[in-house]
């Protein structure tokens, strides 16, 4: 099933201005983990904001869980289906206590307190923040704040989480924390994840990578396929992960290695076969 879908989606911030999105047609499958890459101004954040009806299309249609986002009276259903996490962790935390912040969406939904309690505990556990339930958010690290923000969205029990550069303001360990939490959600609960990012290594962990340029989809496919197209990526002034570049460097010197070995382990494996063939005599 397609959970999020755009059909010929176009968007302009100003009526006369350049289109931020131009006839984008994209379908995101239920339970998938999709990374969206691209430079600033490529339209990737604009796309993300359409999945939550923060922006409405200038042309074309966006369906979230089958609902047309233009249907005003179903706005809350759209937002309950696809929860949104933003870049700046500070500016999306409302309450002075972590658990009260996680409860915020449930409170707005008018759920009974016992149900809110259950969902808050469940959501905090899902991102590994249970022990911080009674803490003040401003004393947490960036990665922790971002996990609280994710929990706040999870409490709505959405089918998808759309994350607009959630790691851009974090340090490497904060980034790792957030990505790990997101991957676990995707693997263990089948949560559909759309991750907008600048970091190739994060995108490499997804099932699917969509590269945007000037409001259009430039590349789309599984990470090994997308990242092995080194020349195309360079033309988009993006760099492939170092693993791919290293293997390509060896290929230039006559080796015939698969550029699809993205992870550190796969790349090492590939190098071992390259060397192993004659250095170990096996």
């Amino acid at each position, binding site marked *: 099933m397609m959970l999020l879908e755009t059909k010929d989606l176009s968007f302009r911030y100003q009526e006369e201005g350049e289109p931020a999105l131009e006839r984008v047609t994209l379908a995101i499958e239920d339970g998938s983990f999709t990374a969206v890459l691209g430079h600033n101004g490529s339209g990737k954040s604009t796309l993300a904001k359409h999945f939550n009806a*923060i922006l409405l299309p200038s042309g074309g249609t966006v369906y979230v869980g089958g609902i047309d986002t233009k249907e005003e009276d179903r706005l809350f259903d759209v937002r309950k289906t696809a929860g949104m996490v933003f870049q700046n962790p500070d500016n999306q935390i409302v309450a*002075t206590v972590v658990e009260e912040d996680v409860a915020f969406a449930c409170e707005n939904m008018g759920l009974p307190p016992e149900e809110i309690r259950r969902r808050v505990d469940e959501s905090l556990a899902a991102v590994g923040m249970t022990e911080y339930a009674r803490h003040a*958010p401003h004393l947490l690290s960036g990665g922790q704040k971002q996990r609280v923000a994710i929990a706040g969205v999870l409490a709505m029990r959405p089918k998808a989480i759309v994350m607009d550069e959630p790691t851009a303001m974090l340090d490497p360990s904060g980034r790792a924390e957030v990505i790990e939490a997101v991957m676990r959600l995707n693997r263990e609960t089948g949560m559909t994840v759309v991750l907008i990012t600048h970091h190739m290594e994060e995108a490499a962990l997804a099932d699917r990578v969509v590269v945007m340029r000037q409001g259009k989809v430039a590349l789309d496919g599984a990470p090994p396929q997308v990242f092995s197209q080194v020349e195309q990526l360079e033309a988009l002034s993006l760099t492939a992960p170092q693993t791919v570049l290293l293997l390509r460097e060896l290929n230039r010197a006559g080796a015939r290695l698969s550029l699809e070995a993205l992870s550190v382990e796969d790349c090492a494996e590939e190098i071992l076969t390259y060397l192993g063939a004659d250095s170990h005599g096996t």
Partner: protein
Amino acid sequence: MLKDITLGQYFPGTSPLHRMDPRAKLLILIFYIVAIFVCNGLIPYAICAAGLAAVIALSRISPKLILKSLKPVVFIVIFTGVLNVLYTPGQELWRWWIFKITLEGIYTALTMIVRILLLVASTSLLTYTTSPMALTDGLERLLGPLKKLHVPVHEFAMMMSIALRFIPTLIEETEKIMSAQKARGADFDSGNIFRRAKALVPVLVPLFVSAFRRADELACAMECRLYHGGVGRTRLHTLRYGRVDLWGGLLSVAVCAAAIALSRLL
């Protein structure tokens, strides 16, 4: 450092006073304030003061902190005292030029001083034992009936709680911007008051710009989490009156009533 300022001056604890419902505490405080302004005479005030002392002891808040809370009103206390002593007509005890001291003056002055001190001490005790969030919550619910008259009670409470949430963030940001401008040679510590005020422009402009950006982003994030005002909203923590509130309330009312009754009888 700016960060070290304690906000709302809340001292977390587990005393019965800390555990009380903020609404109960607010109501008792209101009743107490009425009592100290209605009372008259030495014994009723002694009862009020003793009652407060007992509650302070119960809260396990150091009496030193209570005394500290009285410091800012020392000037007002002296000022009203002196005015009352000198300008209350009545039985003259002493006179010099246009000044005269009367028996009634001394009496009114003392009453006023005691009232102010009890008022400030009891209010401080409330803020010492109740977190700002709980206070906001309590106020919102106590004033709830006003919503029917279209008073935006929920909105005010939400604004209060967001302010409480962002004060530490903005303080931190102010420090950062000040350091950054100092690194560009800005000087905040010298010159007369006008120069110093002008020197703050490089801090205030970025601070406002950032506060507006934050407000914008926060509003968007709140809407994405289905915020639509106070209608139909429930809460994770519902306030519930407990036994401690019942007994606390009854005792306080009894003490205050006794003080008022005595001042009428005597």
